[in-house]
């Protein structure tokens, strides 16, 4: 185990004890949505599946696309881009669904393109600047900005991404009111 995990995590601050948690530390799943690249902590990611037929559910928020059948489990899927309030995109065969587990809720995230799994050191993560060029709604889900080589990845907090909507809209309006 030790021999195996060491090469993978060579530069990351992994002390003496190794575990799955430890080897995953600092690893991020990145994907493209709109013009930006986003990162999700790999612990949350359950699996990545190809796009499949979605059963729409009426009377739900527009970003909840519906339900899919994941080997007998029925899980909801949401469109990340719609969630960010960006322009929706056409689904094609490159479209993927990232299945994430957040606090025992399993949800599929539809993303335009999976990029790669990268390792990001803590020192390369910065808190999002208060005045950011990223729009406000998006900013709510981003807890940090990471530099990877020359590019920048926005790190997402999946709990906030999935969180209760009423709460969020409430917060949103509050923020807007403060702003105005």
């Amino acid at each position: 185990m030790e021999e195996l995990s060491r090469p993978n995590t060579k530069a990351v601050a992994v002390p003496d004890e190794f575990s799955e948690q430890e080897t995953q530390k600092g690893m991020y799943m990145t994907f493209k949505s709109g013009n930006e690249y986003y990162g999700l902590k790999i612990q949350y990611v359950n699996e990545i599946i190809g796009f499949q037929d979605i059963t729409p559910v009426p009377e739900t928020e527009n970003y909840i696309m519906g339900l899919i059948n994941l080997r007998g489990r029925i899980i909801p899927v949401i469109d990340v881009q719609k969630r960010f309030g960006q322009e929706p995109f056409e689904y094609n065969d490159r479209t993927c669904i990232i299945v994430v587990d957040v606090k025992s809720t399993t949800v599929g995230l539809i993303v335009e393109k999976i990029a790669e799994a990268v390792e990001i050191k803590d020192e390369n993560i910065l808190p999002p600047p208060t005045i950011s060029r990223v729009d406000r709604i998006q900013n709510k889900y981003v807890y940090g900005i990471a530099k990877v080589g020359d590019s920048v990845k926005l790190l997402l907090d999946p709990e906030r991404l999935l969180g209760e909507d009423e709460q969020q809209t409430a917060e949103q309006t509050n923020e807007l009111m403060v702003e105005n």
Partner: protein
Amino acid sequence: MADEFNTDGMLDMYLFENEQLLEQLQEMVLEQKDAECFDEDSINEIFRTMHTIKGSSGIMMFDNITAIAHKLEDVFYFLRESHPDNVPHLELVEHVLEVEDFISGEMAKIKEGQSSDGDPSEIIDDLNQFLDKIKGNGNGEKAAKDIPENVHEEAKQFYIAPVANADSRFYKITVHFFQETEMSNVHAYKVVYALKEIAEDILYSPEEILTDESCADVILEKGFRILLQAQASEEEIREIIGIGYDIEKVDVLECKAEEFLKGFKFGEEETGIDLDSSVEEIEAKAENALEVKKENKIAPGDFVVKPKEQTKPKKVVKEKPKADNKATFISVNVSKMDMLMDLIGELVISESVVMQNPDLKVPGLDLTNFNKAATQMAKISTDLQNVIMSMRMVPLTNTFQKMNRIVFDVSRKLGKDIEFEMVGENTEVDKNIIEHISDPLMHIVRNALDHGIESNEERKAAGKKEKGKVTLSAKNEAGKVWISVTDNGKGLDRQKILSKARQQGILEEGKPDSAYSDKEVYQLITLPGFSTNDQVTEYSGRGVGMDVVVQNLQAIGGMLEIESTPGEGSTMNLKIPLTLAIIDGIVIETGTSSFVVETGLVKEFVSVREDMMIHEPNGDEFIMLRGECFPVLRLGDWYELENYCKNVEDGMMVVLELDGKTICMFVDKLVGKQEIVVKPIPSYIKKIKGLSGCTQLGDGSIALILDPSGFVE
């Protein structure tokens, strides 16, 4: 202790076992509550139950439970040993239930992770008094004195021989020790130990020779008796026992196998008398007894010996006719059952994927053998589905038993003389549902006892026969379970309900009372805050309850119907789905979505013509069917679906009947009827009106299950 081992598993087991024991205990006690006294089997059973609980609680170090179980065990030990005549039976029943409540209460605390801190001393004092009382009036003072205090008993020591064969001989041996022998019990054990060498089977009396020193006196007085099965001759046995410095005399009598099986001539009555007789007399008696045999024999009870079935088949059947009827159970974690259920659902789906595989559709393929095999497989998977469904079904017996207890308690507290009858308690219902109906049912039963049945005086005045009666019945009909609670009390007072409703402003202004049907009036009592009882009692009358009952029932798709005849009583009918997990549904399609509606709700399907429709200016639509007018709901409009069929002549009307209302649902087309496995809509998606769940169809796609009651609200 907790530091050393992980006691979680033990604790679970402890709680589970004791819960079951207590349930059985309660059932048994209530069954016999109206009898004169407990029969012998029950006394033994209660004694044993308490003994087990005492033992396991001792291990788990719940001292209060141990103490109280021990006390009740003492009481039943006394009952078992001395058969006192005049035991106040109801008082005894109450004591047993009290102890049972205490233990259940403590176990509930333990379950929630609290420490078991209840103080049993009050109940123990009561039990002590009770014990003194029955001892006082017991079957003669001697009997009472003679029974040694019930000290903690370890596992019984008896030896069961592995084999018996034709050469075996049976002996009755009585060993008399010198009167001055100290610790004769240990000497007796020495004898047993020596005999074990040759014994195929050995029993002895008294049996607690190692654990109970007080039996030394008994041995001295009456001799130590042994039943031995061995191949040895009498001489050999005498040699083994050997008259020595301690043994005065050994009687060895050969006997027949049947006599051997009958056990000791060991009657309690004798024991009592013998106390005062001289040693010689006892000896004479013992001798006599051995000769006379057959009479007065008490077979070795379960505590004396457990005969080996192989050698003594008759005995076993005679002794435990009840035990054989009981099915054996294992407890399985429900989540494992759910998993199995899911897997079987998957299996069914993948089966249909195989069967409808496009590869099979190639023209000119000979599929005869394939189809044969496929049919066989389909049959097995259907059976599998049925079995897993039946595994989730649990009889209502336990729930009903709880009600029995409530009737007992409440009727005594209220001073009403009430008979309780259960009908069809073996009706099986899905486990999930049972959990949900227990509370509503309890409430309804309490209501019936408190409001329904009049006091004894009122009943007399009304000229009714003395006893009030509550009947709890269950039956299975049309895919639903009907549970009804019937009382023969005063019935609901229509006028009182109406005036109360007027007072509270529930009724429509200006609508006369007569415009409300009886059913509607009775339904009023299920509204929040409604109570016609002027006095609030311990059990009911606060007006909280019936609304909760109805809510709980609705949560599981059930309904409450109330019938009542003034002066003759009322009936509450609970209509409950048999299971939540599988429903018989009709699959329909609208737009690109599939929906399922429960078959039971569908009255008919109608193809309609445009001229049957009535359009209101505000957009509402109605349809005339055979002279009746029903509201129309377009499913596509309701859920704002895309691409659904707008022309009524191209689609299909599904006539749904629910809660006495009829609505027509307009859909694109019907797909078929099938059994579907209900799955909840993931909680991430908030509750949607009119949808109660989702399911997987044969092709793996997902359909939403409609709950038409959501349309009506």
